[in-house]
């Protein structure tokens, strides 16, 4: 998937790095160095996603976000901030940001998050609670899942993990993303809780035969085949 990305960042060097990285994934980028310019850009053009720096001159990240949402724009927004300001994350999400990450962020992680954001927008448009990916069907509301029509007996956490992977089937989910979405953790434990649970999920998925539907991307994360 390739997107139209608006990068709102006052640090020119960082903005360029982001642009180069995202071009590498095939995305098209537009740069805006402050909230004012960004406002003009969103009105002129349709973007799939906005990357927004919190600290900016003229109109800062929060100010821009407020104007954007007040103006009825629903475009997904990923906010960037410096580490060590956890409370800002809560404020950012409350103000209408869809994801919130600390700088610096590596390219793969950023791409994975953008993918998830755009995908989440597509899901929210659908009525059904059922998620399908390959032969896997997950119904998070009913706490049930099936593979090729056979019910899977999954504990709650494994089920939520599978649902998250299925919702983003075909794109990689990094460990921090899974920790945030499945466990609600805003920190990364040093042992790999994610790895342990993936291992258990895999075991359940292949119990009744069939290929392993989860791909491991070493050093990056996991992906459920479409």
């Amino acid at each position, binding site marked *: 998937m390739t997107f139209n990305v608006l990068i709102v960042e006052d640090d020119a060097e960082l903005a360029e790095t982001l642009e180069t990285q995202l071009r590498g994934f095939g995305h098209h980028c537009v740069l805006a160095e402050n909230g004012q310019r960004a406002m003009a850009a969103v009105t002129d053009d349709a973007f799939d996603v906005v990357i927004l720096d919190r600290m900016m001159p003229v109109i800062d990240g929060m100010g821009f976000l407020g104007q954007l949402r007040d103006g009825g724009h629903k475009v997904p927004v990923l906010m960037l901030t*410096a*580490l*060590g*300001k*956890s*409370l800002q994350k*809560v404020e950012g999400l409350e103000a209408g940001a869809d994801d919130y990450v600390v700088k*610096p*962020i*590596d*390219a*793969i992680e950023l791409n994975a998050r953008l993918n998830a954001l755009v995908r989440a927008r597509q899901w929210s448009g659908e009525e059904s609670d059922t998620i399908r990916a390959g032969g896997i069907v997950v119904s998070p509301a009913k706490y049930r899942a099936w593979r090729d029509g056979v019910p899977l007996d999954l504990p709650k*956490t494994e089920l939520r993990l599978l649902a998250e992977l299925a919702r983003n089937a075909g794109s990689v989910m990094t460990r921090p993303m899974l920790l945030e979405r499945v*466990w609600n*953790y*805003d*920190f*990364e*434990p*040093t*042992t790999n*809780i994610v790895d*342990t*649970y993936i*291992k*258990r999920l895999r075991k359940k998925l292949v119990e009744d035969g069939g290929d392993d539907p989860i791909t491991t*991307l*070493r*050093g*990056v994360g996991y992906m459920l085949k479409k």
Partner: protein
Amino acid sequence: MRFSLRSLTWIFLLLFLAATALTGFGIYSTSIATIRSLVDERIAEVSLTAVPRPTGAEQNVRTGSRFDAVLIAQRLDALSRDRDTGDLGFSLTDMAGRHVAGNVRLSRMLPPGFSSVGVNDNIKGLTKGRALVRELPGGLRLTVTAETEPFNGYDRARARIYLIGFGSIIAVVLGGLVLFSRLVSRHITDMRTTVDRIIAGDMNERVPVTGDGSAFDQQADAFNRMLDRIQQLMEEIGNVSNDISHELRTPLTRLRGKLALLLSRVEEQEVMGAAVGGALEDADDLLAMFTAILRIAEIEGGERRRGFAPIDLAMLAGEVVAVMLPVAEESGHALLLEESGPLPISGDAQLLTQLLINLIENALRHTPPGTIVTIATSRFGERALMLIQDNGPGIAEDQRQKALRRFGRLQQGRSAGHGLGLPLAESIIRLHGGEMRLDDAAPGLTISMTLPTR
């Protein structure tokens, strides 16, 4: 010699009381002696007016014109009537002690010379006074008495004046002393409260300044300026280490990204893959270390207190144990939970979860497979108690303090991890107003934490 403030106060008080009492007594006795000698002088003078001193020749004369009883009686009569000497008592007695003349009668024989007389002597109009007895030729005795008190009950009145006078001095000094010590102790308490709050983690606390420019104010002001300076320096140091961490994170993240890309390309060449994989792990460790440093800085800034919410610590511990069970199972450890009733506290659920996961990870990492790790929560009076105990090799007593220090890695093979796990845990506990300590579980390690309940 050194005195404590308390003993110095007592010494001062006793000396002050002694000096005041001595002064009072001195003034009292001097005034009495002065009055007595003045009265003595007066009665001697009057006595000589009545009967002049006999010459040597007259001593042996039994009767004579100058010492004739009738003559003396006449003189005494005149003196009694005189306005100047009318307040004095006169008595002339003969050889047998019979009253011959004078305006008073004596109930007892007074000794010759000066003596004190009182109300018991039943001398008319006299309560306290002096008497002079002279033996005259011919066996006659002349007694002159005089009052030493200007009015009745003068002694009591004087005592009362002294009590009021010196008593009020003592009262003023003692009262002043109490007020003064209260004032001093109030300022000291103000300062100590501030220091306690700073120790508790609020570096923004300052000693109140009244603005009257007193020595206490100047002291408080100097103390506050010192705190400002310390805070400024701490912030600078904090900024520097934050800057370093941020700066280092950028190239590390880039390195990590490149390695991850490389790894995806060289997956087929296994040896190369392992090497790059190892480099990736190193980069991850470094990133985790800086994340922990920045996290500790954030926690110690105290700002996360704003996000505190009601939490049940027992429930939180149960949830974390449930999450960590599969991880413990994988590393061959037993993870047990000793549940308690609800433990309502006020805190940051994310941080407390991170704390528990950290400590459990620590226990799993540093103990051999087969070790039992127990998490227990309980109520201990007004505080919530949380224990993490293992029956592994433990930490030697002299190493425990070091384990809590940042980067304070221990020699005995505890090499894994970034050396910030326990300091991070401690900073989280401190943020919640709690305490954390390491103890011997004999065998193994007990980490006990107490937190205030809500």
